[in-house]
């Protein structure tokens, strides 16, 4: 295999890496860059645990080659809190106990943020369909949906 050299921005920082052409962006983030917040739950795009944004667009990093990231802005869970300041979604997930084991939480937070960035006033149905690509096996989704709705309401007030 001929390795590929890739230049990207990750969470706002310029990051260069070299990877094999068949490595996914998820492999690169986790195994080469030490960003293990994105999780591999299925590697087929069915669970959403590896959710990241590319140029602001939500995607599964297991369905993107590392090489494809050339010249793009990647957003991961590690970039969600700004310094000491948690994103309102992160706060609400804690307040609402919207996580049990926590393995799906980074993916849900990235997906929920992508939703609220595009739609600050989602209905419960819109939230449920927007998050349908993120599997959670612990919570039955109830507290996750409440946390996202509550965050949206609070961000509108602010």
């Amino acid at each position, binding site marked *: 295999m001929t390795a590929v050299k890739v230049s990207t921005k990750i969470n706002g920082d310029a990051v260069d890496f070299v990877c094999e052409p068949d490595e996914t962006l998820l492999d690169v983030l986790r195994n080469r860059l030490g960003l293990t917040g994105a999780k591999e739950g299925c590697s087929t*795009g069915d669970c*959403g645990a590896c*959710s990241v944004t590319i140029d602001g667009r939500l*995607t599964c990093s297991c*369905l993107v*080659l590392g*090489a494809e990231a050339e010249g793009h802005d990647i957003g991961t869970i590690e970039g969600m809190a700004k310094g000491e300041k948690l994103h309102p979604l992160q706060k609400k997930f804690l307040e609402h106990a919207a996580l049990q084991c926590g393995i799906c939480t980074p993916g849900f937070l990235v*997906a929920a943020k992508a*939703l609220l960035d595009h739609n600050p006033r989602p209905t419960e149905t819109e939230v449920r*369909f927007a998050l349908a690509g993120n599997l959670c096996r612990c919570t039955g989704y109830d507290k996750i949906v409440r946390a996202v709705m509550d965050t949206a309401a609070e961000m509108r007030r602010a």
Partner: protein
Amino acid sequence: MRYESPTTLQAASQLLAKEKGSAYVLAGGTDLLVRLRTGFIEPDLIVDIKRIAGTRTIAKTATGFKIGAAVTGAELGENAALKKAWPGVVEAANLIGSKQVQGRATMTGNLCNASPAADSVPALVAAGAKAVISGPKGKRTIPVEAVPVGPGKTALKKGEIIEALVLPKRPPRSGDAYLRFIPRTEMDIAVVGVGVSLTLDAKGVVKDARVALGAVAPTVLLVPAAAKAIIGTKLDAKALDALAAACSAACKPIDDKRGTKDYRIKVAGVLAKRAAKIAAQRAGGK
């Protein structure tokens, strides 16, 4: 394995044509990477076409719309003009996978996988969409229904790439719709899919129609008999029953993990009725 991301169609065709081993085109990658990861394919070359000019754009032309091969489902959904003209095609494309998948998946990729259950294909076939193919011997344009020739097989020759899909201009009082059945509300492959596109006359009589079925045969089916059943009618109960019967009759399904023969045959008719009603509504009928 090599990864290439050429910036012209010619360069892309050359790469694919010259490759001695197995070569694959990468657009959204939402199917290709799954097959790669599960060891189902072991490519020697992957050609990423997203850096080729035009593959990421939706152009409104004199004859309709030209949709670049790498335009994602999410981008289709954000194009107001396209959504207004071809709501059924856009809703079909937007049914593919999750929001995450929508950010990557393309209709052209969906078409080239040649899966009988591909959601966007019945809608495209019903819409009379065409595929613009570019290859070492130049360009050619063929109807979308001619692209898949069997499960996983297409009519594309070595070195050929679909650069864009074109949708015709809409006559007045036209509408289309796509409905599929899945056991959940999201994240599933269609057990049955039905695309209906129709045009009404001033009196609300169906004057032109195309009906296509997915997941009921080795390839997506265009069903002229189903169109015939509703042309000249106001989609009254009798016409809808005839439509359902024609669709069920056209099915050549199999029993598999996603559904039974009998189930697919029956539900194809059920969905055809529902899709036809929605299409008619969108065309301004009652």
